[in-house]
Each structure stands twice: as C-alpha cells, then as structure tokens.
C-alpha cells in the first residue's frame, strides 16, 4: 500500500459493512416472517376447507 487510505475512509467502509449486514439481516427476517404467515394462512385454509 503506497497511498494513505485515511482513517475516516476505513471507518466508513466498516460502517457500510455494518449497514449492509443489517439490511441483509432485515431482508432475511422479512422473508422468514412472510413465509411463516404464508404457511399459517395455507394451514387455516386446510382446516376450514376453504378453496
């Protein structure tokens, strides 16, 4: 490395990493909850016999 990346620039990339992880975690949680509710609805339909 022969150029100075500067501390602020490094810190911002760590922040970006944290933000991207949070977004990924949020998306995964959203997908998990969506599929959970989808499965509840389909189970309810089976019990009531609705089509």
């Amino acid at each position, binding site marked *: 490395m022969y150029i100075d990346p500067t501390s602020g620039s490094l810190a911002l990339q*760590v922040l970006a990493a944290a933000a991207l992880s949070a977004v990924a975690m949020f998306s995964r949680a959203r997908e998990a909850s969506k599929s959970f509710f989808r499965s509840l609805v389909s189970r309810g339909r089976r019990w009531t016999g609705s089509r």
Partner: protein
Amino acid sequence: MDGQPLDSSFRDPSGFVFTREGVLYRQVNRVFQDEFEAVTASGLYDELAGQRLLVPHRPVSLDLAASGEAAAVLEPERIPFISYPYEWSFGQLRDAALLTLELQERALVRGLTLRDASAYNVQFDGGQPVFIDTLSFERRKEGAPWMAYRQFCEHFLVPLALMSRVDIRLGSLLRTHLDGVPLELGARLLGGRSWRSLGLLFHVRLHAAAQRRYRDRAPGAAALRPVGAETLLGLVRGLRGAVDGLRWSPAGTEWSEYTTDNNYTAAAASSKRELVSGLLRGRGVRTVWDLGANTGEYSRAARAVAERVVAFDLDPAAVERNYRRVRAEGESGVLPLLMDLTNPSPALGWAHRERLSLEQRGPADALLALALVHHLAIGNNLPLGRIAEWFARLGRTLVIEFVPKADSQVQRMLRSRPDIFPCYTREGFEAAFRASFEIDAVHPVAGSERLIYLMTARDGDEIGAA
C-alpha cells in the same frame, strides 16, 4: 533520459515506467514480484487486455531493466497521446470512473483489488478509456477494506458531482487539485444538493464527515473490523450507481451551438472540409492537433488523411458532443479534449514535471487553426506575431484560416468594443506569420471572404533571419 523513471512515475515503490532508445518499458521491482506473479496467474491481465480495458504488455528481457531492483520488465503498448483528467469532458471523466469500478469489481471477484484509483491511471485511446497502470492490482488481504476508496471519490465522484449538480466549469478544480478534489471541499460546494442522492450523501457528505472525525488519529478497534468481499462489492456497486446517476446535458454554453450557429453556407463548409484534407494529403502527416475544434467537424476531415487527431476546444459542451459522437460512431483516431488555448495546460506537479504541458506533448505533424485566429487576436488581444511563434513550436505544418474584419463573426466581436487592431488585415496577418512560417499556399473559402493558408514552420535559426 534513457533508463530513468519517467517524471510521472516515481511514487509507487512496486515499479516504474521508463524509456530506452525511444521504447516505453515498465519495470516490476522485486518487492512486488509475488503480487505481480499472482495477478498474472489469476488470468486478470489477459482478460482485461483482451477486452482493451487494460493496456496490453509483453514481458521482455531483464537485461533491459533500469535498475538492479528489477524482477521483470514489461513493454506496454504505447498510448499515442497522453491526456489528463482536467482536459477531459464530463463524459470522459464519467467513463474513466466507470472503467475503474469495473476493474475493481472484476478484481474483487478473483480475490484481488486495485491498490489505487487515480484518474491518471486511465488514458483515452480514441473514444475508449483504457487502464494503463498494470501494477495497480494486487491480492486482497482477507477482511481488508478498499484502500483506494477515498482516492476514487476525490478523483472521480466529487468532481463529477460538482460538474453535474453545481456547474460544469468546476471540472477545472482537477487542475489545481492533482490528487483529486478534497471530500470536504466537495461536500461544501455541493451543499444541500448532496442530500438529494443517497450515493452522494454517503460517499461524499458522510465520507467527508468521517474524515473530519478521524483526522489526526488512528481508527479505533471498531473501525478496524474486517470488511468482507461482499461488502466491498456492495460498495463498488453503490459507487457505480452514484456515478451512473450523474448526468450532464451539453447545452447552454457559449460555443455549444456553434456548429449550427455560424455564418458558413453549406458550400463554404464543404469547401473547407475538402481544403483541409486536400492540403494535408501527401505531406506524410500522422498526428494533427485541431486547435479550436468545436465538435470536430474538420477534425474528421483531417482524420481522413492522418492516423490521429487531437481535437482541442475550450467549451465543455462542444468537447462533450464531440466525445459522444466518437463513442456513438465507434470512431478511432479522434481524441476530443478541453483546452483553453489562451491558458493551455501547464507543466504541473512535483518539480513541474509530473504532468506535461501541452507544448511538451508536441510537436504535432500538423496543426489546424480554423476560425480561430480572430478569437485569439481580437477576442483576447494576442498579437498575431506571438500566435505565429507559439504555433510554430506546436506543429510543423499549419493549416490556418484568416477571417477578415468584414466577416460577420468579426463584426459581431467588434460590436461592443473599439477597434484597436489596425494590424488585423490580410497583409498584417501574412507579415506576422512569415516571421515563423513559410507560406506554401493560399485558398479562398467558397462563398466567403475567408482564406485558408498552408504554411510550414521555419527552422529555429531561420526564424531570427526572417
């Protein structure tokens, strides 16, 4: 000097560029040998060179090395004319930015990274941006952030944002800030505009704030946490989105409509085109500099008989239009560049040697100076003799148009100022240029009172005698 590093190539300890008997070489130093071999083995060089994204090179004998530290010597393909970011139009700087990001993305995918992201690592081969610094790639250390992130933002994103969102003329900041426009200056000049784009908000405003916060201190443990390759890919894609979102429409500048707003009839324009190519034909001209090229109408007439034309103009819109045409039509051999001939690019950087002046990059085989001399002589009070002297240093053959005072364009210039130019006559023009040139031929431009001259520069000792 033979075997000495070029003055633009001394900062990087991994290697340097030098010439030997007029041939350009790049030395790879032993300290960088492992990295160079790893990048070569990855296949990245071959892939990029094959697609003309990186200048191709071939390994040559170590006997050609410039110093004892050499591990390898390469002979890169030579770029015919070196240009600098402060001479590029908006579109050229944007394309150079996108190329740099493309290369970083491809490098990351292979476990490599760009060690630097300087705009000076890109050159234009006609309309095509091409990366020239072979030694910019290295293996990425697991968890390492992108060391060149700040440099990319300061060399590309900040100037592009300022040109797009504030004023196109702010591109000239690159001439005073050779290592990029500082983030903090960019954030201040952008003001509230940076809030309207998530990319600019993050990569410029927040980046500048982080610089301020960590100024003069090492980052804490939290800021040294590892950064994954996926995050870096996200960062690069985010930067690409930010650059992609920056647009500029070339309109509204002084010269942007010149090609359509002039006093030439179709016959005069066609006569001029034929004259230009006819006068240059048979003179063994390979390189032409078109001074005051506007959108490159006559550059293309010159290109018909020469290998390469560099089309200079001072108007950012005209240069942008010319560049877009080169890109759209896939033209090779025409390079549009921004240049104010009354204040041309000087020698810049360390010891005035890192970046060459326009004159140092010459001479060209031939110059075109069409519909230009009245702007220099009357618009900028430059004596005709001084114009001739400088042109004789820039090129050997000169095709120059004399626009008489009776011409409506000159009348327009004299409308708002007293005529203090008694020597601006055909006789005065010829006398002034005879001091530096031989006049070989004079031709009238059909449908006008204008004249086109073909001249040959006198040798240095002849100039004093003339």
